[in-house]
Structures are given as structure tokens and as C-alpha cells.
């Protein structure tokens, strides 16, 4: 049962271009949506996160757009750089109750930025 669906599986972008990765979720109880970045041979690391009370969050070149009614959120990487080449995972969790902050991850997107 995949509660968070991520697309595309892989993405190739030229340096300076915009990278866009999309995710859709099913569980309306989710109230925290992070994106993790993973470089080869490393564990994932938190990149940026959003809560459903805002529609957009920007940190440097990275922006999350959130559409609560459509149950979708996306990551935009502006001015993509070769150093951004990595695997990106969207995730979702329920902050309260006994969820312990458990994360449900999307399938991942392998981003390659060509110089």
C-alpha cells in the first residue's frame, strides 16, 4: 500500500534549469510534508519541509508548493546545479498522537543535472 506516490522516477535537467518533482498522498490525516535529499553512499538528509497551513515555502533555490485540496505537493529546484544531482524523496507524517513522527516515503526521484 503506497500512500505517497512520487513522480517522475528520474529527471535530467541542464544546469540553470528548473527541476520539478511531484508527490500525491492519500491519507488526509498527514500534516507534515518533508523532502529528503540523498547523495550516493549516504543516508537521506532533510532538505525542506512544509505544513498544510501554508501553500508555499521557499529556502534558497528550493521551494515546496502545497495543494491541500488536490492532496499534492511538489519540490521546485531553481537554477539547478550539478551539485544538486541526487535522489530526492518526498514524505508525509502525522505530527500528533502516537505516530512518533513516522514517515511514509515516496518512491524517490533520481535527479541528474548536466553541466
Amino acid at each position, binding site marked *: 500500500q503506497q500512500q505517497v506516490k*512520487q513522480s517522475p522516477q528520474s529527471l535530467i535537467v541542464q544546469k540553470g534549469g528548473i527541476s520539478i518533482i511531484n508527490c500525491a498522498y492519500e491519507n488526509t490525516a498527514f500534516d507534515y510534508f518533508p523532502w529528503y535529499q540523498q547523495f550516493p553512499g549516504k543516508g537521506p*538528509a532533510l532538505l525542506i519541509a512544509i505544513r498544510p497551513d501554508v501553500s508555499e515555502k521557499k529556502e534558497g533555490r528550493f521551494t515546496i508548493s502545497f495543494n491541500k485540496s488536490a492532496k499534492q505537493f511538489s519540490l521546485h529546484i531553481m537554477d539547478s546545479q550539478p551539485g544538486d544531482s541526487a535522489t530526492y524523496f518526498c514524505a508525509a507524517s502525522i505530527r500528533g498522537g502516537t505516530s*512518533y513522527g*513516522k*514517515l511514509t516515503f515516496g*518512491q524517490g526521484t533520481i535527479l541528474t543535472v548536466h553541466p
Partner: protein
Amino acid sequence: DAGITQSPRYKITETGRQVTLMCHQTWSHSYMFWYRQDLGHGLRLIYYSAAADITDKGEVPDGYVVSRSKTENFPLTLESATRSQTSVYFCASSDGRGSGKNIQYFGAGTRLSVL
């Protein structure tokens, strides 16, 4: 070294053998998690723990056993390894308090091959 460390980094074993993957964190985080990463599936939660002696099943617990006698350690045991358990395993920890509740910090992973 401070942080979260996994050992071994690489392991090759045979079908039917018992294997234990180790995870150690120095932050005294309450919450710890085990994931497996497989292409096309993203990261799937195997087991998690809210504190010492408190553990619970995740999405894919079959064939795995965990224990947590000390806050800083969370070993994962494959009781009788199968080829389908060939994967990259990640351990993560989380503070579980305040704004940091949902931020998980990952180890570098253990690549396990079951022959």
C-alpha cells in the same frame, strides 16, 4: 564520533543465516527507526521505537526482529536471511520533541547481500 552510526557498512551472507545490523546514536534521541531502501519502493519502515524497551512494527516487519535495551542502540536482526532481504538498510533517529519531532537523522546505511 557524534551522530548516528551503522555497522557494518557492507555485509554478505547466505540464505538461512542470522544477521544483526547495528545502529548507535549519541544524541540520546528518544525515537529510532529502521528502513529498507529498494529501487522503486523508496524507503519502507521496518520497525520503530519510541524509547528503550518500546518497539513496534512498521510497514514491512516480517522476518525481522528488533530490541532496544539502551536508548542509544537499536539493533536489527534477520533471524533467517532470505534473498528478498537483500537491500540497503538505514537507521534513523529523532528527538521527538517540539519542532524537531518530525526531523529524522539517518545513518550512512548498511548494504546487505543475501546469496
